[in-house]
């Protein structure tokens, strides 16, 4: 699976770090570091993280199949 995080939008709430610790981690105090192509078995966790992100910064390819619409996960203008 492929993901990208809009790090302009990310504010370091770290919800994704709690929900998918193998994919997202904080590097230092608030810099997010993530695995752009996490293994398939992480899919459920990644989708949960994408939905939980307070600023909706995580774009997951094919997320439409998940609980939230693709529109919400779009990388934004900021």
């Amino acid at each position, binding site marked *: 699976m492929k*993901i990208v995080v809009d790090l*302009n939008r990310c504010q370091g709430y770290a919800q994704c770090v709690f929900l998918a610790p193998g994919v997202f981690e904080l*590097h230092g105090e*608030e810099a997010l570091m993530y*695995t*752009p192509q996490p293994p398939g078995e992480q899919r459920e966790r990644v989708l949960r993280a994408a939905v939980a992100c307070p600023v909706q910064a995580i774009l997951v390819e094919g997320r439409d199949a998940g609980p939230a619409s693709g529109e919400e996960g779009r990388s934004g*203008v900021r």
Partner: protein
Amino acid sequence: MSVDLRGGRIVVVGASLAGLRAAETLRDKGFEGRLTVVGEEHLPPYDRPPLSKQVLLGRVRAEETALPRRREVDAHWRLGVRATGLDGAAREVLLADGERLPFDRLLIATGTRARPWPNPAEAALDGVVTLRTVEDAAGLAERLAAGPRRVLVIGAGFTGSEIASACRERGLPVTVAERGPAPLVGALGGAFGAFAAGVQRAHGVDLRCGVTVTALDGRAGRLTGAVLSDGSRIEADVAVVALGAVRNTEWLADSGLAAGPRGVACDAGCRAFDMYGIVTDDVFVAGDVARFPHPLFEYQLLSLEHWGNAVAQAEVAAHNMVNPGPRRLPHLSVPAFWSSQFGLNIKSVGVPTFSDHVMVAQGSPQERRFVAVYGYRGRITAAVSVNRGKWLEHYQGLIETAAPFPPDWDGVEPPASRTPVPSDVPDPKVLSHGPTVALTGHLPDRRLVLRRWGG
């Protein structure tokens, strides 16, 4: 959308972030015609920011950075072939393999490439590298993993600083040679640069400022070290040339468009200007290669090497390619970027180089948690946060409303001093090697008109 704009042939030249997002948006907006995306690299669109961070730390393989698609894109992908020319009259893109691609509307999103080391013989030494592509990143990650005795980073812009950070995190000795007085000066000014220099030295970087590399030495085709302009010598197995980017506009030299080293000039709706300053209506520009007017910055033409700008401008360009005049949108988003280095999260909104003064508005540089606010002639034009990204949105609002500088808002974590100091940005008329934002407008020193009539 009028029927004729929904059909026809659209060619996108450039298959990176801007090209991909534009292709998706074109289909989202109802384009039903033939869509062709041309890319010089063989790989499908991939994300570059991880290449100087996760990849160099060995946590992510360079090849595993492909960009997720927002949707299926029905397009003809011509990857691994370079565009070599544009025939505006015939409306054709010329490809390196000799093919001519006809179009009704064209999007130019050819981006930038790493500026090479100027001496070709030295650049060819094994161990002398640049960092821009997946291939570059894979090679550099491999070299760092091999445990070189010392890495020399030439240039302390964002890319050079992130590379130095990765080296230190891997425990590698690293020397950074920077022509300016401090790291990040080209993008954030001298006052912030002094802070950045302190951070680098605290992390064990052998930082040399105010020097240039005058020669790279090798033995049997392998790099052995470098000579600096102050006469000193560095022994190094790897030298990363991080001297900024060159805009990929050479292929447009005979196109009649306003294209040059500073990018392709376009209007607020992403339509390219021709060399006479007349706006075209069938050629659009987006991403790093574009220079566009921004009302928050006195309508100077901005070139932004920003991830967020590539996305936002591609969306506006694509929208305007399939909509008639009255429905077109301007590209007005406030510039923004991020960098992570030495454990710090640095985020910026606005244009820090468009400033005369800067002050710490919240937090403490000593504690490495603060927001610096930039002002130009009494209004706020930019803000940069260090490990305080949550505060930045407030300042974006101040920038958008041209709030007075210095700000009178008394937020949490008030700084020790509210005295503005000169932001000390390099003269924008000089093409600096390292800024991720270039103010390219006006060029008052070039009172030059070129006329070239048909034929």
